[in-house]
Every structure is written in C-alpha cells, then in structure tokens.
C-alpha cells in the first residue's frame, strides 16, 4: 500500500453532494459530526470543496437539472475517489423513481463503490458504511 493511500485511510475527507434529496440524509450526515457520534474522532472531516475530497457522499435521486453538475463534480474530484450512494433515493431513487424529472439512480451515470440504504440511514449505519468503504482500499 502506498504512503498516500495509507494516509488516506487514516483520515478520509468527505464531500457531500445533494442531487435532489429531501435534506434528511444531509442532516443525518451532519449529525454524525456532532458530539453524540463525533466521527471526527476517526479523522473523518466534511470538507467544503470537492478538490479536497477522498470520499463523495451523494444523496438523493438524480434530477435532470443536477445531472450535468454531478458529472462535472465527479470529474473534478481528485483520484483515488470513493463514491458512496447514500439513502434509499441515492441507491434506487426510492419513492421518487417514477418522477418525470428524475433521470435515475446515480450508478447509471458514475461508478459507485458502496451503497448505504435507509430513509434516512441512521448515523450508526453511516459510520459502518464509511468503514466498509475504507476497508476496500
């Protein structure tokens, strides 16, 4: 394992993208950072720019308007990048799968490494999902 990868495993930086979700997944991600769960203990930090990210946490069904932005975001991310589909909508569009403006789950457009199901996933689920992604490295 290269030194860079080893360092990455110690402290994965996460960028969070909402592609049309209802906010709840986003709140639960933030919840992980606050004192009850406090994932910063493990070096997990939410970053402000996709250029700093090691893991892309993407929630929500992909809407027509967001699709070009999502592709651009994925291209802008540094490699190696891990993509996590987050929530029921992120995995399979959930309740919105028949919506006329929903173009499909994100794995139709970008490669996805892990799925965290739930509506919304509980913080415990999120943490275990991230750990599984890191073990893949």
């Amino acid at each position: 394992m290269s030194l860079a990868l080893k360092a990455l495993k110690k402290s994965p930086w996460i960028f969070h993208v909402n592609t049309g979700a209802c906010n709840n997944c986003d709140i639960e991600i933030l919840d992980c950072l606050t004192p009850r769960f406090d994932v910063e203990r493990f070096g997990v930090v939410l970053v402000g720019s996709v250029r700093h990210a090691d893991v892309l946490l993407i929630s929500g069904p992909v809407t027509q308007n967001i699709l070009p932005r999502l592709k651009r975001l994925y291209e802008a991310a540094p490699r190696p990048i891990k993509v996590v589909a987050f929530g029921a909508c992120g995995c399979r569009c959930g309740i919105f799968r028949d919506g006329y403006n929903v173009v499909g789950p994100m794995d139709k457009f970008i490669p996805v490494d892990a799925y965290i199901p739930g509506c919304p996933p509980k913080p415990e689920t999120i943490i275990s999902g991230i750990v599984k992604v890191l073990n893949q490295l």
Partner: protein
Amino acid sequence: MVKKIPIGPFHPILEEPEFFELHVDGERVIGMDMTIGWSHRGIELLSEHKTWDQVPFLVERVCGICSCSHPYAYVKAVEDLCGVEPPLRAQFIRCIVAELERLHSHFLWTGLAGHFLGYNTVFMWTWRFREPILDVLEAVTGNRNHYAVMKPGGVRRDLPQEEIGNVLKLLDTLEKNNDMLTKAIVDDPVIHARTKGVGVFNKAQCRLYGALGPTARSAGYDVDIRRDHPIDAYDKVKFNVILCEHGDVFDKAVVRQLENFESIKIIRQCLKLIEDTKPGDISIEIKEVPPGEGIGAYEAPRGEVFHYVRSNGGNMPMRHKVRAPSFNNILTNELSVLGNTVADAGLITAAVDPCYSCTERVGIVDRRDGTRRVLTEADLVRLSHEKTELIRKRFAEGGGNR
C-alpha cells in the same frame, strides 16, 4: 464597479441545491438574483398516481426537516374534503409530534447559524441538545426522521403510555438548555455586533413579499396559522405568538429561541389533556373520498404549509397542490441582503432557514475585464469567521463595535 458572485448550486454542508447570484460593488451587495428548481422531482404529479393513504409517505419527503408538517397539511386537506374530524387522542398525538419537530428544527437552525458566525461551540452544543428530541421521536413514532405518523382520519401509532414520562423528562431538560442558549445569544456582544441591523426585512416588505413564519414574525408581521385558523388540538391549548420588531438576523434567532418555549408549553398541555382520552382510539376509517375539493394548512417551523386536493371520487387525488413557505421566504433575501457585505450574505440567506444552500464554489466575475476569481464555500465561511474574529478582538481591546 459591479461584480457578480454566483453562490451555488451546491452547498457542502446541508440543504437543497440553490443558486444565488450576488451583484457587488466592492464589499457591498447591491443586488441579488436567484435560481431555484435544482431538486425538482415532480412530487405533485407523483402524488396524483398514489392512493389517498400512500400520499402522506410521499409528501413527508418533500422536505426532511418539515417531515411532519407536509403530511399534516395534506391529511387536513383530505379530512376537509371528507368532512371528518379525527378522534381527540389522534389530535393530541399529531400536535405533540408536530411540536417536537418544530423544536428539533429550531435547534438545528440555531446550531447552523452559530456555525456560519464562526461559533462552532454553539453548533456542537445545540446539536447535542437536539439529539434527545430525535430519540424521543424514535420511541414515539418509530423513526428518527420521517415519522410516518399522519394518516387521513387519524394517526398510525398510538403514543405508548410509558413514553409520556420520558417526553416530560425531555421537556424539562430542553427547557433548561434552551434557557441557557437564549441567554447566551442575547447576552453575547459579538453576536449582537454580527447580527443586529444585518439583513433587515421590515413589516411592509413582509406584507409585500408574503413572508411567512419566523421570518415574518421577527419583523412584527403577526401571522401564525396555528392561532389564526386552529386545526385539531390547537384551539384546546394556550400559547403565545412570538413577535419581534426589527426583522434582522438577531430578531430571527430570538423569535426561534422563544418559540421553543411555546412549543414546550404546548406539548406539556397536550400530554396533560391526552390522559382523559381512551388509549387505542387513534383513527377513524375513511371508506370513500367523495368528489370535491379540500384545503389544509399548517404552521411548519418555517411558515405556513398549504395543501390543496381535488377528488373525482376515485382512490387517488385528481389534483394535489403543495405550497411551501420557503418559496416566499427565499425571495425575501433579494431585499434583505442589499447594502450588506459579502461576509454577511451567507448569514442573511441562512437566516430565513432552509435556504442557505449551496456554495459548492463562489466565482467572482469582473464585468469590466471578464476575469474570474473562484472562491470555495470554505472561503465564504472563512470570510464570515474572520469578521467575527475582528469584532471579538475589537471588543477585547475595549473598543466596542466600530
């Protein structure tokens, strides 16, 4: 020299994608343009292809934070259409869950406002206080968010008798915590300097723009659906509508903090009144939905949520219209950011609540030579933090504000 600063459409921390374009002259904001509709999913059409009983699960997912208010307005619309009233016990349970939601939403906002100001301590503390509310909601409804408790004609789950004690215990600690937080906000000179007179939106403008919820009440515009058109148990409980007068960010924070006390009051009264009702009597069956129209409105944490349904006698709504408060409230940003600095713009757009979205990156385009400077979200937060630091230092030196 006029510059344009695009903010959006992604925000790395939370909330839905939105796009703001700030027009600036140096540091002053002189105009604003906004584009919404990034997360348009076609919910109204989807709901016209679901049965009356399935729709609450869908409208819950309009917004994750107001995930009780939308189904509430929807079931009221259906009940209005059918001309039925839910049993008393169901009314109280609805009231309790809705008010617990308001509490968690207001706590969430206070935390985020603290984060934008550069007070991460406030962020961490309020979110720690918020956790027990979610625990209680999980115990009462079965899920931390998306409670799925509403149903046309009543509620889906009864309030377990043994949970009542836990809810009361939670209210006691919350009251203490909220009191502490309110005092911390009202007494802090740095928060005063950062938020007083910033992002002012006055009463006349509120009427003009149709502002709703805490955004309107902070400017003294007296509007609260819970009191004006009481539904279910709201005419059986006593509470005050909190009003401030200045309409700046500070007043918006104070209104939300004081509303928390009112919510606690409402839940306490409901828990007392629910003892007289029969356990298990939580819903009536609606066999058939007659043709016609129905409306339902509820005061969500952010303002009035309005639902309209039309039926042709079938098992699905023929038309379902949703009107959320944020649409009105986002527009108020247009006026309230004028004359403020770029460092304050993030805070002001955050102050209306769901609506600070979105700063995946900020680019500054110079109209004269077309050069482009790209700032990240982190830069915008940093600008805000720097300003707070500056003011804090000034206070430490005894200089006061300016």
